[in-house]
């Protein structure tokens, strides 16, 4: 059964789109990652123009993250207080990142910086998460549960404006999540993705948040970030296809619900090792893509 996508201007099988959405939604619900780094290439593979794929993907992430965030909220996994600070930091960082990209583009080496940033960031996060989770799994307990109470105060903990975040069970200076999230926002803007796969590890390892709360809180901030991106894309590029987004959403919201439930059944370490494996796979694929001769030297131009 085919359906015509009015902005993309093409006709595509309904179930292919719903299936693609379900796959990405499952990951979104389970790991708190938006799935943009996976869905846009899938859509391009099935014939959606790249600019429409990227913009409509943002729109469907709004739906998927709303569904995932609501599910996590009921499970007590969303830290609204910390999430709001993260959101502000992320938006500030994204604004800086966009300017950095503009400068790099003018200098002519933006693409090289983007690819290298991808490989370094994904490689570092993935490897660290994988090793840490593996050690934790072998020990048979979560590191977070055995956090020493009287650990040394780091430089970050000496910053002013301390605040307690009871939902996450942590205490930080407001500046810590704000600055860390601004850094993630810069990276996300440079890499052209939502940043969930950087944000979740950052929340777990640097902010010491429990994995499930990190996932729920990340979905909460992704909801607002992607809502902004969708509106901007619709305003400036006219590339958001709402029919495409709704079909992806039908799949992804159902997938997100299943993902959230499956995620709840898994231990934090198991979730972390799965996410680490996916991050490492994406990094390896990118690294291979850098050295293997492409089958076609041209690709459809996609806005960044």
């Amino acid at each position, binding site marked *: 059964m085919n359906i*015509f996508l009015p902005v993309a201007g*093409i006709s595509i099988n309904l179930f292919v789109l719903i299936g693609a959405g379900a796959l990405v939604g499952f990951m979104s619900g389970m790991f708190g990652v938006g799935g943009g780094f996976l869905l846009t290439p899938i859509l391009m593979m099935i014939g959606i123009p790249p600019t429409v794929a990227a913009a409509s993907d943002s729109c469907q992430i709004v*739906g998927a993250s709303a569904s995932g965030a609501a599910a996590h909220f009921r499970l007590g996994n969303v830290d609204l207080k910390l999430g709001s600070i993260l959101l502000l930091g992320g938006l500030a960082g994204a604004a800086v990142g966009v300017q950095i990209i503009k400068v790099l583009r003018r200098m002519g080496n933006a693409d090289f910086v983007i690819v290298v940033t991808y490989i370094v960031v994904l490689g570092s996060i993935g490897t660290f998460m994988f090793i840490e989770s593996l050690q934790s799994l072998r020990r048979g307990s979560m590191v977070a549960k055995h956090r020493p109470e009287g650990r040394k105060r780091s430089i970050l903990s000496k910053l002013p404006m301390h605040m307690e975040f009871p939902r996450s069970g942590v205490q930080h200076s407001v500046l810590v999540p704000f600055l860390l999230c601004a850094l993630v926002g810069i990276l996300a803007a440079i890499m052209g993705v939502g940043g969930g796969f950087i944000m979740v590890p950052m929340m777990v390892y640097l902010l010491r948040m429990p994995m499930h709360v990190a996932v729920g809180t990340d979905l909460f901030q992704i909801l607002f970030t992607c809502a902004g991106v969708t509106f901007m894309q619709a305003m400036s590029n*006219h590339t958001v296809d*709402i029919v495409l987004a709704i079909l992806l959403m*039908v799949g992804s919201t159902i997938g997100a619900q299943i993902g959230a439930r499956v995620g709840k059944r898994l231990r934090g370490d198991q979730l972390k090792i799965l996410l680490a494996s996916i991050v490492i796979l994406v990094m390896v694929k990118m690294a291979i893509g850098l*050295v293997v*001769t492409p089958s076609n*030297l041209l690709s459809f*131009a996609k806005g960044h």
Partner: protein
Amino acid sequence: MSGTTSGRFRRLFLACVASAAAVGAAAGAPTLALRPSVIEMGTFYDGATVRISGTVAEGSQVAVVIRGPEIEESFNKTAKAGPIWINEGKVHVSGVPSLFICFSSAPMERMLNRAELDGNQLDEAAIRGQMIIRPPSMDQPIIRANYLTLKRQQGTFGVVEGVVRMDKGEAGRVSFSLDLPWPKRAAPAAYQVSLYECRDGRVSAQVSAPLEVREVGFPLELARMAKEKAALYGALCVLIAMVAGFGIDFTVTKLGKSNLAGH
């Protein structure tokens, strides 16, 4: 005697008229008909088959070409820098139709000479030659070849030889037909279907007809809104996405609770 003479004259006159009519028909312009000539893309549009038919002079071969409007297309170009492949910058291609599909009754190079193929832009080599690439410093032959490969993968470029059916002729004319499964992924636009009557290595006659592919109904209204009322459309997209997300969560939760109650 006079009766016999007048009968001969009448027969001679009729024979002259008949042969003149046959020559006229043989030399007449080819005809081209499309059914349908407008493809409407509604909500559940699932492609369409266009019947292309007509007549040409007996002994001719036929090439039917569908062309999309000429637009400049932009691509990213990858190049090797040391051991790695990175994006070198943008390449802009123009001067060629956005869609080019050619069907013929025989191999194109057997039907037409090179000058005719190039002059009428009728095969891959001709399309390659007419591409305009910006910036001109880019590796031209590779870009031309890669562009066509990309378009072929997209389904918007192709040359299919020997598929136009030629039927038996009548009065110096032969009819032809072709059932064209319209590419589902071809964008709404004003396309041009051209018929080339080929004889002795040359295009002896040519006729064209428009093929309009347009959105209708709900898709048309939505596409129009996305362009003309972008802010409203953007806000609506966000709102719909949020309502859908929370709505599905609500539904799934309700279903889960009712299942638990059932047990």
